[in-house]
């Protein structure tokens, strides 16, 4: 029955493409979380009135973040071709998409991290200082735990944006559901393939959102 409705869908190919999309998104989310958190912390700590207040450093980091956040993703992929070739050795396959995905998403997430950190009550940081906490202690035991719900909902939004990015990366040869929908679906006029790929992307997005909301509500004790 399913075979009649979707005559052109080859399920093993769909499965392989889904795994590729999940692989790209998964690695990129983890790397974006780490890199974005570090950048966000630096943005926050070097800003006015904070622990490492430093105008020059803050301006440089903010400039880097803004530049990479402003470049449209499809252009970023093209600009990063030399870097990707040097790092991964090829422009084909899921791994080739990773540098662009991470460099595209980390600055975006860094801004969210900065906003999350700015939401923390200044009094709590002052209290930790008054207790004799070092900067490392303040980062690990105050800043990150106190902003965790916002960090998690931020990475949820970023992860969903990354699913979209992987589809775009797919068009230029990185594999995954986007690649499948474009090459097998659109170019060969197999609308059922495009349809299945779209539904799978939607399912992935819904699942990410559900997990994100669930974790956020679990850890938020305010």
């Amino acid at each position, binding site marked *: 029955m399913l075979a009649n409705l979707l005559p052109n869908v080859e399920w093993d190919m769909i499965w392989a493409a889904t795994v590729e999309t999940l692989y790209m998104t998964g690695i990129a989310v983890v790397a974006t979380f780490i890199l974005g958190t570090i950048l966000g912390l630096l943005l926050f700590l070097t800003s006015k009135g904070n622990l490492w207040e430093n105008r020059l450093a803050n301006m440089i980091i903010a400039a880097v973040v803004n530049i990479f956040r402003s470049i449209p993703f499809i252009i970023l992929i093209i600009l990063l071709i030399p870097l990707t070739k040097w790092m991964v050795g090829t422009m084909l396959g899921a791994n080739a998409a990773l540098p662009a995905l991470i460099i595209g998403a980390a600055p975006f997430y860094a801004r969210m991290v900065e906003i999350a950190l700015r939401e923390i009550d200044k009094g709590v940081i002052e209290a930790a200082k*008054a207790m*004799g906490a070092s900067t490392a*202690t303040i980062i690990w035991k105050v800043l990150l*735990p106190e902003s965790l719900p916002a960090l998690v909902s931020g990475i949820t939004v970023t992860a969903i944006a990354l699913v979209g990015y992987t589809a775009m990366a797919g068009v230029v040869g990185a594999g995954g559901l986007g690649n499948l929908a474009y090459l097998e679906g659109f170019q060969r006029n197999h609308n059922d393939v495009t349809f299945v790929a779209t539904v799978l992307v939607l399912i992935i997005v819904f699942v990410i959102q559900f997990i994100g909301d669930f974790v956020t509500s679990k850890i938020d004790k305010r």
Partner: protein
Amino acid sequence: MCMIILENVTKIYEASNGSVTAVDNVSLQIKEGEIFGIIGYSGAGKSSLIRLLNGLEKPTNGKVIVAGRDIANIKGKELRKARQEIGMIFQHFNLLWSRTVRENIAFPLEIAGVPKEQRKKRVDELIQLVGLQGREDAYPSQLSGGQKQRVGIARALANNPKVLLCDEATSALDPQTTDSILELLVDINKRLGLTIVLITHEMHVIRKICDRVAVMENGKIVEQGEVLQVFRQPKQAITKRFVQQVVEPEETKETITHLLDKYPNGMVVQLTFVGEAAEQPLIANVVRQFQVDANILQGKISQTHQGSYGVLFVHIDGEKEEVARAIDYIRNQQVAVEVMTNAR
């Protein structure tokens, strides 16, 4: 022995539209084991002053010595070590919402590197001390204001500090909760011999628990002394205003004006009693010994940390000379007398 010494301390903030002198040449000595209050309106510089004591702010000039350490000139590890000996509690409690009561109290112990087993033991002791048994695993959002401040106090005491700084610690609490927190502070002060420095804008807090008080205005300390002494003889206008907060019912001024109109004869006097004098049958003696009538118009006795303090407004009527003699008699009983006159 002085626990805290401030010498000619000045704190100036540089802002884009000029500089602000928050603390202006303040010298202060606070003895070991005393409860010292600093009172002032907002903007008087008391928040800056208390933050100089644990190095959250650095003085522009002057010397800050706390528990023998030169707070203004140490930094890094040494300053962090010093801060572990100076507990601090805050107006808005500043607890970590992501941690339970137990974990919040354990936080300063983690900072000090206390091993886990000892940490648990110490936290249990502190929960007993501040009376939070049964709430150990609650999150701050599940606590009342008073309970939050108890967590704050337990947290501040975790590393056995020598000094406890209270930054408007009761200003966000209702009167009843304020009293219970103040009682807890006195209890801690007695039991642990802790030196407590508190800043507030409520004279009620000073009256209730302080041994000595300093009054701050525009960054300067304009008056300081034993609480009872300051209550008896406030010198500066601002101090008088603060004393009035507690001793005079709000409507007193109006009532007095009204009475001065109503009783053109005789005199309306304000009697101020301190300590033992407050407990003598003074008015009865006056009426018995002199040919005067005494009519009590308004009165209040307040309990301070060191003894009672009372104010009474009395209308005394009779022959002019007799009234004068009665007033002389009252003066001889160690009671301050102020003759009220109509402003008009």
